[in-house]
């Protein structure tokens, strides 16, 4: 509400537009990510953040200076940055003896931290280290999660959701098939998460669907999970709330069964069975005398009705 009617009004149209862009909306903006270096960050962490920046590019902000903060101990400065740069995703990198090559991935709801997960980097190959062609910036990636671990524990489930949220980019109605250029592949095995980025090579297969070959593009990381901070259930539920305008409208009188068959309920007016044409037989034919009496009866009825009126 504070956004809707501010005590201090924007003075220019431009300022108004700027504020309007940040207001809560029914159809939200694409989530932006901020990439922040901690007080101590080594070359690996710095390069990781730079590579992530390259992957996320139009929707990310790379903080160039060090920020001495520890998200798991004090979240206020991250929340401040989030509000300042209107980012709801963040990646925080630091390096110290206790937690070497530390990467914290998280997301915000209403400028407050919703989830964050700490990951340790065990191996890192940069985008620059692999010498081959890269894909243009702003390409929407394909995301693949392999391994049953992603469904077993709550931490991993949340991590999967977080990674999808982080990397998926804008939601689009159409996509150019030739523009599917790279894939992010996450494999969870034996407590490790292998993050690999591959470039797609479409080969002819003889049919319409091409055969896929992959080529490593970088960055690739081997990650282990460290600390986690997950939102409480009610906050998470609140953040998942769907606006009423986006909820699919119920269609009346249409139902489906478990097999996917559609049933419709039709409301009909009562049928007049007296005019039903049955089989014509000589015996059932009306005789002229009967017709006459019928007509007379009808006439008298009409007259009666008139009288009532």
């Amino acid at each position, binding site marked *: *509400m504070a956004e*809707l*009617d501010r*005590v201090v009004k924007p003075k220019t149209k431009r300022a108004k537009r700027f504020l309007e862009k940040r*207001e*809560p*909306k*029914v159809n*939200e*903006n694409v*989530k932006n990510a901020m990439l922040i270096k901690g007080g101590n960050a080594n070359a690996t962490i710095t390069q990781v953040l730079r590579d992530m920046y390259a992957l996320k590019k139009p929707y990310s902000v790379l903080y160039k200076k060090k920020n001495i903060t520890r998200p798991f101990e004090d979240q206020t400065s991250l929340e401040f940055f989030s509000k300042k740069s209107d980012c*709801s995703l963040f990646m925080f990198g630091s390096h110290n003896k206790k937690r070497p090559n530390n990467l914290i991935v998280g997301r*915000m*709801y*209403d400028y407050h931290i919703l989830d964050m997960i700490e990951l340790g980097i065990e191996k890192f190959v940069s985008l620059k280290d692999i010498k081959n062609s890269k894909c243009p910036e702003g390409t*929407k*990636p*394909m*995301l*693949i*999660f*392999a*391994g*049953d671990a*992603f*469904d077993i524990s709550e931490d991993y489930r949340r991590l*999967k*959701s977080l990674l*999808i*949220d982080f990397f*998926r980019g804008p*939601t*689009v*109605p*159409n*996509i*150019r*098939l030739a523009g*599917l250029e790279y894939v992010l*592949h996450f*494999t969870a*095995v034996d407590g490790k998460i*292998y993050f*690999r980025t*591959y470039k*797609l090579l479409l080969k002819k297969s*003889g*049919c*319409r*669907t*091409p*055969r*896929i070959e*992959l080529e*490593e593009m970088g960055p690739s990381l081997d990650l282990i999970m460290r600390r986690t901070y997950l939102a409480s259930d009610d906050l998470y539920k609140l*953040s*998942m*709330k*769907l*606006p009423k305008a986006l909820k699919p409208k119920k269609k009346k009188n249409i139902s489906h069964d478990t097999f996917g068959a559609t049933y419709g309920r039709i409301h009909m007016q009562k049928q007049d069975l007296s005019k039903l044409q049955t089989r014509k037989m000589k015996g059932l034919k009306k005789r002229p005398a009967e017709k006459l009496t019928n007509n007379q009866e009808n006439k008298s009825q009409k007259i009666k009705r008139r009288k009532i009126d």
Partner: protein
Amino acid sequence: MRGILGFVVLAGSLGLVVPQRGCLLTALPKSRGGFRLSCPINTTMLPPDGRVPGRRCPELPLCHRKDNFLASGRAYAGLHVVPSAACAGGCLSCGSLRVAMGVRSAEELLAQAEQAEAEKLRLITVHKDLELEFDLGNLLATDRNPPTGLRQRSGPELEAQLQGLARDNVQLLINQLWRLPTERVEEAVVAKLPEPSLRLPREKPLPKPRPLTRWQQFAQLKGIRPRKKTSLVWDEASKQWRRRWGYQRARDDTKEWLIEVPGGADPDEDQFAKRQRAKKERVAKNELNRLRNIARAHKVQLPSQGGMHPTGYQSRAELGKAMQVAKVSTASVGRFQERLPKEKPPRGPGRKRRFQPNVGDFAAEKQSQLELIRVMNSKKPRMDVTRATNKQMREEDREEAAKRKTARGGNRKGHGGKRKGRPPGLGGKGKGGPPGPGNKRKGGPPGVGGKKGQRPGGKRRK
């Protein structure tokens, strides 16, 4: 098997298009016998005995010798259309083909065809124990199979295995994506993605509806609808249509160089400055009302509502309140303040809490407890009399407004002015004309019990 473009099974007049070359081989009806081999430029009839007429396609380059349309077989049970290796490049225009023939049974051919199909599909099919889950709106796939293939812990083997796993998964996702309906947009093939099925948390809370201003509330109550004003108005002075507001507006009173001094006004008064002051005051008032509306929406207690505003005129009640506040604003909360003669002792902030005696009237206590239980047990909600009355009054107000509206609308009807929409609170029927005695209200106003003919306050249930 390489180089085979297609095959023909001769059953009836079945034909097969060889798409790369644009040729069509058709079996003619039995009465005529033979086959027709047609390319875009000419058509050759092949007789049933297998002789090819000595004609040559006029477009054929020299590299084609006699065997351009070679038919050496004796039967046409099976035809293989093979592009001539020697002139594959030169004859695309006319679709010249060498027709090699051999005796093959239909079954054999079918088996071969299936094999070829399988060969093609083998490149793009991947087998998984558990099928992948797709969310095509997010270009997302989830592979729930445990990655047992990854035996190596490190090194290049692991990389290769990971890449293999990724390839298979990507192939499956691509197969799904290529199955989507496509269309052409400016030379690019575009697939229509479905809505993302995976729900992710929002970034910001849901947008709240804007709270009504005081005027909007009042207008709603009285059934006043905003009137649309045109943005252009006729300006008499300049004889042209001008904007109602803003730069170069019509009837701009700030641009006047001469103002008539109104009768009875001080002749020395600066009328220009007066106008400017009035405008400033209007702006300030509007701003104040805006802030008030915001405060009301946020339920902030305004200082003026406490009766303490520093304006020139203060009412008796306001003064009394101010005095009271001043009196208790001491270190001892006004305990030792002197009182004027005949002044009533100040009523404190509220009554002190008093407890019932521990041993007292058991019958009354029992009754009160039972009453409490009864109220809690009863399904029917208790009626708040004041709320119900207020609601009823407001409803009546609204109806009154609606009635007035319709009455006016009915009178105007003859002039042909068609009105869009109807004032709130009026049912669908009975448009125009004052509602007669037969005008029944359906149900009742909300908050009042369902019975008809009940008095507005309702009966208080004991």
